[in-house]
């Protein structure tokens, strides 16, 4: 029995799984060459037919976004333009597997090198298509995973996720992967535990470790291979407490959040897209604490009307509850073609309000859309990445100018309260420069990464990126205290706000207003109810 091995990654979908490991990375299956080109052609046709049939069956059993992904794959497989080059290569003497791989790889490169995020993300679908046919071709009957298995490997294909029966447990542990992938979204909505970013070696360290049962703790983003008996027992305790907390949490959703001692805590939601509110009962939250606007800047710069409609939709949904919209926070890890600039160190570069002030023509458009939308609800606007007072004053002056211009044109508008994100340490350390702002919203993700000098998207330094480090908590407490004295509302809208493990420390630091992703709303309220302050 090897020594226990613990690996740390990033949680993409909270939950616990105990089970055997199953290797996702395709073992290079052997393809038996056929005697003639005609037989090679037949082999590929049969394999494509098999993959098509498999997709069609899967579509029958799927709905929503997942079905759309599969429909797209099916349409691709059905297209002669995709399969034609492979058949041409076969006619020229290539074996079917080589011909197919080359033809698909040529298409995949086109997606991988796109300058648009959306098209780059489709490369995963194209690889999925390639591998489905390759598996059918090599008659590698896609070895079935044992029930309750923890899938590990480089990445997981959407079809593999959808074909797996998760009812008997199981989970996902990936070397790379992303919490923003399609599969991560599906995992969260179905409650499948998933950890990403386990590092280049992943679980492949030693064969002896892979033989036994593993413990996946996707609440804290870790996995233990070859666990000791004590570790198994501890894990089962955590796992059953998680299940109990999740069930119990559901009963808290409809109620206002209150601590054991009766302290009321406001719980708002973070949204990234106007359609996010479609699935939220507005009565279960105290408003929108953070509405991101980067979605509008996906591929092209949005016009004023598109922005106005998006903001107005959320304001009307909120029925008078506050909606805090953050002006565009592009740059850093969120590049926008034609807007952001290429930098060697983008997290410390021209991002957030710095970029908006550098591109006033784009910023003024967003300001006009916000001023016009403000008449439809309880709007608040905040600026990201503010480091010095001058930036706030400059942005506020642009709001005043645009308001005057709209008034002159007789357009309905309203000036919203203007606040700032507290995420650059300079603001958290010296908030006294900002006594005129309407509110502070602590962006704990960026604040933590800047205070700890540990990127939040780098698994190698993930252990340093902790909001519960005393340095980060002390800054949060000091901003909360400053706000109380100055009567400036302070809230927090980072991931920590929805983390049951961090919530007690945040309330202890003096925060009474948290904003969480909608999926964490119930758990956050339940965690607040356990706090004795």
């Amino acid at each position, binding site marked *: 029995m090897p020594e226990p091995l613990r690996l740390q990654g990033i949680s993409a979908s909270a939950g616990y799984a105990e089970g055997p490991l199953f290797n996702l990375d395709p073992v290079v299956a052997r393809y038996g060459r056929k005697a003639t080109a005609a037989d090679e052609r037949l082999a590929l046709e049969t394999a494509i037919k098999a993959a098509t049939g498999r997709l069609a069956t899967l579509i029958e059993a799927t709905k929503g976004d997942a079905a*759309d*992904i599969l*429909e797209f794959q099916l349409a691709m497989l059905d297209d002669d*333009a995709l399969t034609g080059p492979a058949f041409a290569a076969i006619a020229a003497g290539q074996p079917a597997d080589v011909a197919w791989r080359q033809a698909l790889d040529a298409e995949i490169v086109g997606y991988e090198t796109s300058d648009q995020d*959306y098209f780059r993300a489709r490369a995963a679908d194209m690889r999925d298509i390639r591998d489905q046919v390759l598996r059918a071709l090599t008659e590698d009957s896609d070895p079935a995973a044992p029930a309750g298995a923890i899938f590990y490997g480089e990445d997981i294909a959407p079809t593999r996720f959808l074909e797996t029966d998760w009812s008997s447990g199981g989970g996902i542990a990936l070397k790379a992967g992303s919490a*923003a992938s399609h599969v991560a979204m599906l995992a969260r909505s179905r409650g499948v535990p998933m950890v990403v970013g386990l590092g280049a070696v992943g679980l492949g360290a030693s064969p002896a470790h892979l033989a036994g049962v593993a413990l996946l703790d996707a609440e804290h983003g870790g996995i233990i291979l070859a666990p000791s008996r004590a570790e198994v027992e501890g894990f089962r305790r955590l796992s059953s407490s998680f299940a109990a907390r999740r069930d119990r949490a559901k009963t808290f959703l409809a109620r206002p959040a209150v601590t054991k001692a009766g302290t009321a805590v406001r719980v708002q939601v973070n949204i990234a897209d106007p*359609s996010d509110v*479609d699935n939220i009962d507005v009565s279960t939250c105290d408003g929108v604490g953070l509405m991101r606007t980067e979605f509008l800047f996906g*591929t092209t710069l949005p016009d004023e009307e598109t922005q106005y409609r*998006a903001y107005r939709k959320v304001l009307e949904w909120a029925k008078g509850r506050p909606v805090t919209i953050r002006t565009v926070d592009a740059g850093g890890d969120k590049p926008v073609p034609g807007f952001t600039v290429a930098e060697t160190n983008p997290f410390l570069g021209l991002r957030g309000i710095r970029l908006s002030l550098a591109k006033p023509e784009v910023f003024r458009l967003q300001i006009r859309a916000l001023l016009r939308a403000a008449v439809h609800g309880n709007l608040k606007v905040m600026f990201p990445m503010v480091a010095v007072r001058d930036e706030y004053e400059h942005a506020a002056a642009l709001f005043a100018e645009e308001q005057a211009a709209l008034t002159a044109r007789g357009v309905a508008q309203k000036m919203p309260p203007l606040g700032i994100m507290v995420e650059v340490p300079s603001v958290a350390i010296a908030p006294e420069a900002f006594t005129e702002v309407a509110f502070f919203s602590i962006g704990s993700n960026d604040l933590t990464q800047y205070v700890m000098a540990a990127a939040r998207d780098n698994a190698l330094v993930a252990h340093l990126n902790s909001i519960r480090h005393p340095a980060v908590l002390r800054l949060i407490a000091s901003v909360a205290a400053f706000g109380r004295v100055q009567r400036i509302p302070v809230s927090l809208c980072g991931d920590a706000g929805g983390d049951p493990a961090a919530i007690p420390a945040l309330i202890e630091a003096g925060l009474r207003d948290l904003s969480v992703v909608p999926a964490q709303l119930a758990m956050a309220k339940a965690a607040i109810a356990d706090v004795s302050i």
Partner: protein
Amino acid sequence: MSASAEATVLITHEVGLHARPSVKFTKLAKRFSAEVEVALAANGPWLDAKSIVKVMAAKAPKGTVLHIRARGDGAGEAVGALVELVRRDFDEGVDHARTA
């Protein structure tokens, strides 16, 4: 005697002619026997509107003026129906537009 038709339409869908709209677009084009092509500029290059591989490869973002032309039986109906689909935002409101 062969009919032909041509039209242009502005893509207003949030992320452009992406996966889901492309599936709808090519499926609709396939319903017509006419030869249907699309281009991002009046002088081409013209791409087979019934091929999702070609339509996706055009990577047409929001704000693109899409040129559609058809030749053969039902050419007019084909162009009309495809223009309508793009105009209706592929039957998806802004509510369903996603960037990822």
